[in-house]
């Protein structure tokens, strides 16, 4: 089992820099759609013996992470003029500029006396001919992919000024079979699709998994025993716990930012209301009191407010209330039907699903309802989830085909650019992005 707790990553201080500090700052403003990704050459981390392949694999994962962000373009290793083993103390920058590589990643990898994997990388600006950053990571060898993601995170941060999101996971619902008897299983994978595994066996219909802030637990909804209720799944133990003893269907669960509470809907007699449950005391508080549908609650990252979905105004719209349930205010006023509000980890935006004139959209607006922007549209786009840095949104898309609907995960930048399929072994829905792993 890939236990997060057992992981030990050590980021050393920035390596000795060349005499001059980096001039001519190379940076990307990721608030704009990037039309010209920055060319980057990621050389294999040099390693001897058993670590030679690890060095190649780490470089491949780093390059794929960077490229998938849409901000970088990885240069084909076959175009390299200077071979990685020839890069001793400093690269031949001219050789790298000649293949239009603005950024260069070099490094080495080895096994230490205690059996731990040690990986060092350096990021170079080939025009300024200087090192931009560099770190050494130490961990158990089986964690080499996480080392690669940490390296990609460091490069992303150095160039964009924003935290990376590559050392993260995604939990989602894997789907198979005809729509009339769809089999759904919880599944989890690394952000890049690696280390895919199923968490449930498909016997019970499961929906809407969401990570706790430590990424150790998942709250989700299950039809176990034909009784739709909210559960918590512990990733380390694999155990599932029914959450609370409610007199009706509980659904739409989501953790509070501190992980101590779960906010969810309870439906009794056809009326759904939003409740919050303290996981330590098991105390339950009702937050809404309205005969309308009240569901899909999502905490603001500072825990002060909760966005939710209600049809109290006659159609499904987005509302924001205080965390105690006070002062609910409608924030969506555009044409169409709005649902699934999800607060950005940065707090500045709320992502949502919008339905208008037969199409579905993923969009964002500020918490006061201003600045609405639509990022995607299709027959059915639904269920946004944020990367931990608040720059990328994952969602699912159902596409009608002659053989029934196909459901796949997609990601899109906050700018609306860089829409990409997130590859899963089977169909997928209800993605939830983890926080950055510790």
């Amino acid at each position: 089992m890939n236990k997060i707790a057992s992981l030990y990553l050590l980021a050393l201080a920035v390596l000795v820099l060349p005499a001059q500090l980096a001039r001519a700052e190379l940076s990307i403003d990721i608030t704009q759609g990037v039309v010209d990704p920055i060319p980057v050459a990621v050389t294999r981390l040099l390693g001897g013996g058993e670590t030679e392949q690890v060095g190649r694999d780490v470089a491949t994962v780093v390059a794929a992470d960077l490229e998938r962000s849409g901000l970088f373009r990885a240069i084909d290793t076959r175009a390299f003029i200077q071979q990685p083993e020839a890069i001793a103390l400093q690269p031949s920058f001219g050789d790298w500029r000649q293949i239009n590589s603005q950024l260069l990643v070099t490094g080495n990898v080895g096994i230490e006396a205690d059996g731990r994997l040690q990986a060092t990388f350096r990021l170079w600006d080939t025009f300024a001919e200087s090192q931009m950053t560099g770190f050494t990571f130490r961990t158990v060898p089986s964690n080499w992919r996480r080392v690669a993601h940490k390296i990609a995170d460091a490069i992303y941060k150095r160039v964009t000024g924003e935290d990376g999101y590559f050392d993260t996971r995604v939990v989602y619902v894997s789907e198979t079979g005809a729509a009339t008897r769809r089999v759904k299983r919880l599944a989890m994978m690394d952000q890049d699709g690696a280390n895919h595994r199923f968490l449930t066996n498909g016997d019970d219909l499961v929906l809407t998994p969401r990570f706790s802030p430590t990424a150790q637990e998942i709250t989700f909804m299950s039809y176990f025993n034909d009784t739709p209720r909210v559960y918590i799944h512990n990733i380390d133990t694999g155990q599932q716990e029914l959450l609370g003893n409610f007199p009706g269907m509980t659904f739409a669960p989501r953790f509070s930012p501190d992980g101590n509470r779960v906010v969810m809907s309870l439906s009794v007699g056809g009326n759904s209301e939003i409740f919050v449950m303290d996981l330590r005391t098991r105390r339950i508080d009702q937050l809404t009191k309205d005969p309308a549908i009240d569901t899909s609650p999502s905490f603001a990252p500072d825990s002060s407010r909760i966005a939710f979905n209600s049809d109290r105004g006659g159609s499904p719209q987005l509302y924001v209330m205080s965390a105690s349930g006070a002062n609910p205010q409608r924030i969506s006023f555009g044409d169409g039907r709005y649902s699934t509000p999800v607060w950005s980890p940065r707090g500045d935006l709320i992502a949502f699903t919008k339905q208008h004139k037969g199409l579905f959209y993923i969009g964002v607006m500020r918490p006061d309802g201003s600045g609405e922007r639509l990022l995607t549209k299709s027959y059915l786009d639904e269920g946004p989830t944020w990367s931990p840095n608040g720059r990328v949104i994952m969602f699912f898309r159902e596409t009608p085909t002659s053989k029934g609907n196909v459901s796949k995960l997609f990601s899109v930048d906050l700018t609306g650019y860089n829409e990409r399929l997130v590859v899963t072994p089977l169909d997928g829905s209800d993605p939830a992005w983890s926080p950055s792993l510790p």
Partner: protein
Amino acid sequence: MWGKLFSLTAVLLLVAACETTPEETGDAGGDGGTTATTDTTGGDTMAGPVPGSQEDLVVNVGDRVFFDFDMYDVRADAQDTLTRQAEWMQKFPDVNVTIEGHCDERGTREYNLALGDRRANSVKNFLVALGVDPNRIVTISYGKERPAVEGSNEAAWSQNRRGVTIVN
């Protein structure tokens, strides 16, 4: 039109009526109608459905009613069916039922779970108003998770926005 749709659905359900899984309506596409006169329940054609059974409900009463988009009030054309269901339940006082509320795929998952619960309870409340003991009825919402038919058009959606009565 509704009668035609309904009879097709009823036939399909008849085929699957011996199964215990709720909502096993089978593939509704294609030429499902060819099974209309085929008895697949074991050849006991003389006796017909066992009184008080799911098959009896489907064939002689009607097990489901349909709803308009994003609505949960019982439509006029559903009231006859539910009136017959109430009479049927009075006739078989030992029968308890589960009412499933379902939605079409033109809504988001969590909203549809809430909407399906509204629909199931609309059906329940209608039956209770006609004198059925509420303790004989439980409800469950499947949202958009268990469509009766596949298809991305109004014909399919209108059959999927439904309340289905299942004998426990």
